């Protein structure tokens, strides 16, 4: 992977030529196509994840992907299928444990318990697999954006279309159920069914995205754009759009930086995202501070 980078041409000031060079390679075309789809879906589903306070569930489902991918290798099934099955089982498990537990606020414990189990299983699968597989663990954890084949792109296109379609279909009731579950349930919205469906969609997104950014870093596309969007606006439609656009920008910039510099794409994506978050959050804090001070001086003057 690094040797491929070593003999790619360097960045020049002729931007058009740069872009042409960038898309000269088939693997870069595939990477950008797949990255775009994954980012759009991640921005959208991430908004709901943040709205529903399920950041931890998102992080855990991403880690469940580790067990899914390693298990798929062990049992000889396609990794996307293995990832999705593991994610579905985890979603059902979280939901079941949550309803079985005594307190209503135990959701983080159920999520953590499922996370522990899946990490343990993942490690067990690695242990049982042939020895040379241990080096592939890196790919599962951090993704390999250069290894995306045309067949992978086809899979990603279809599953992303399904994901976005289902999410659009249930967006309104899901939004209602996320904002005020009790009132929604009283209006006959199937709150628990929606919760399970949402976790399953999250699992699907993770299964799609693992190839590109890996199980550890899909989380940064899910949570950070949505967190920034929430800081910027309170209107749901605007926020979803902002989250999707930001996720897209981070992914494109990350792929570009990963193409020029010999470091992992996931690192660039998460760093761009986090940098933007810090700037936005910091800017808001400073503005709030200034407003507070100016209002304090005006009240002082009127007195």
């Amino acid at each position, binding site marked *: 992977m690094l040797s491929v980078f070593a003999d790619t041409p360097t960045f020049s000031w002729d931007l058009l030529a740069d872009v042409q060079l960038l898309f000269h390679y088939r693997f870069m075309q595939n990477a950008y196509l797949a990255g775009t789809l994954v980012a759009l879906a991640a921005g959208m589903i991430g908004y709901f994840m943040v709205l529903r306070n399920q950041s931890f569930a998102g992080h855990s489902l991403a880690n469940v992907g580790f067990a899914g991918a390693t298990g798929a290798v062990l049992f000889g099934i396609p990794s996307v299928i293995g990832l999705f099955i593991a994610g579905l089982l985890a979603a059902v498990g979280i939901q079941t*444990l949550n309803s079985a537990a005594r307190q209503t606020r135990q959701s983080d414990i159920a999520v953590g318990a499922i996370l522990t189990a899946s990490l343990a*299983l993942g490690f067990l699968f690695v242990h049982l697999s042939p020895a040379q597989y*241990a080096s592939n663990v890196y790919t599962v954890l951090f993704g390999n954006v250069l290894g995306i084949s045309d067949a992978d792109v086809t899979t990603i296109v279809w599953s992303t279309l399904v994901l976005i379609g289902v999410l659009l279909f249930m967006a309104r009731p899901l939004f209602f159920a996320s904002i005020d579950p009790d009132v929604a349930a009283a209006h006959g919205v199937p709150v628990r069914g929606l919760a399970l469906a949402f976790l399953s969609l999250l699992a699907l997104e993770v299964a799609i995205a693992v190839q590109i950014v890996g199980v550890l870093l899909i989380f940064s596309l899910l949570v950070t754009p949505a967190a920034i969007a929430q800081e910027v606006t309170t209107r749901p439609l605007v926020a979803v759009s902002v989250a999707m656009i930001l996720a897209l920008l981070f992914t494109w910039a990350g792929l570009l930086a990963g193409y020029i510099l010999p470091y992992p794409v*996931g690192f660039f994506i998460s760093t761009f995202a*986090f940098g933007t978050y810090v700037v936005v959050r910091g800017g808001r804090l400073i503005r709030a501070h200034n407003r507070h001070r100016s209002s304090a001086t005006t009240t002082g003057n009127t007195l």
Partner: protein
Amino acid sequence: MNVLLAGVLPPFTLNLWQDIQVILSYDFMRQALLAGTCLSIVAGLIGYFVVLRHQTFAGESLSDVAFTGALGGVVLGINPFLSLLVTTIAVALIMGGLGERLRGRDIAIGTVLAWVLGLGALFLSLFTTHVSGTGTGFSGVTILFGNILGTSPEQVRSIALISAGITLVLLLIARPLLFASLDPSVATARGVPVRALGLGFMVLLAITVSQATLAVGALLVFALLLLPAAIAYHIIHSPFAALILAAGLAVLFTWLGIAIGFYTGYPSSVCISLLAFVSYVVIVGGSSSIRQIFRMKILSM
């Protein structure tokens, strides 16, 4: 290591006393049991507060942070334990500083965590390009999943010392911390320094996680932190009894898990975590179905 063991090990017999003697006759097993016991007690005690304060996500994140910190230390050529300790404490203080409000806190933790994981990816790639020949990503796997059977005598000694220190401090602040965790606003009104206690607790959590991560891996740390405490929290209402139960369960899981790993050849961290998980599911599932049966009986009467 486990492959090497499998050939030499005596089989499991029904004579339990003899089995224990066989296990204890190995140096590495004695060290593993000693280190495991110390870590379990601390993890059980700290874990109960983690569960009580709804800081599971923070606890999990800290073990991921420890992963990045240790790798960063190796890459930059600093002592891994020092860099790990500094990174986890710094991140823990930031998390503690984010306040007690649950809603914004989870998002902020998630955002920080996402970036820390990205940094981890960078360090891992730097690490594998610098230290070629060790096998790509394999040392990362060791830090993530650890090997309790590989603890050295010096490690055991430092684990015992640090664990004793943390337990002592935790027992000293247990009462006000419980108060502050259960009802922060009333505790503030009574003059309990809620914020300082929260920050102090995060530092304790960070030290626990970082010393344990190097010895037994991030997976096992989180399993021991969360699951015994969750079971105790589910069964017992009285806080002090639950604290003792959590520590006891953690020790029990560790001993059984190490013994199972010893005889089956599977990694002991996997055995301990899965054992704890199955117990949690059985207890939570069992108690809820018992409750349902009761409710149905009452309804039919």
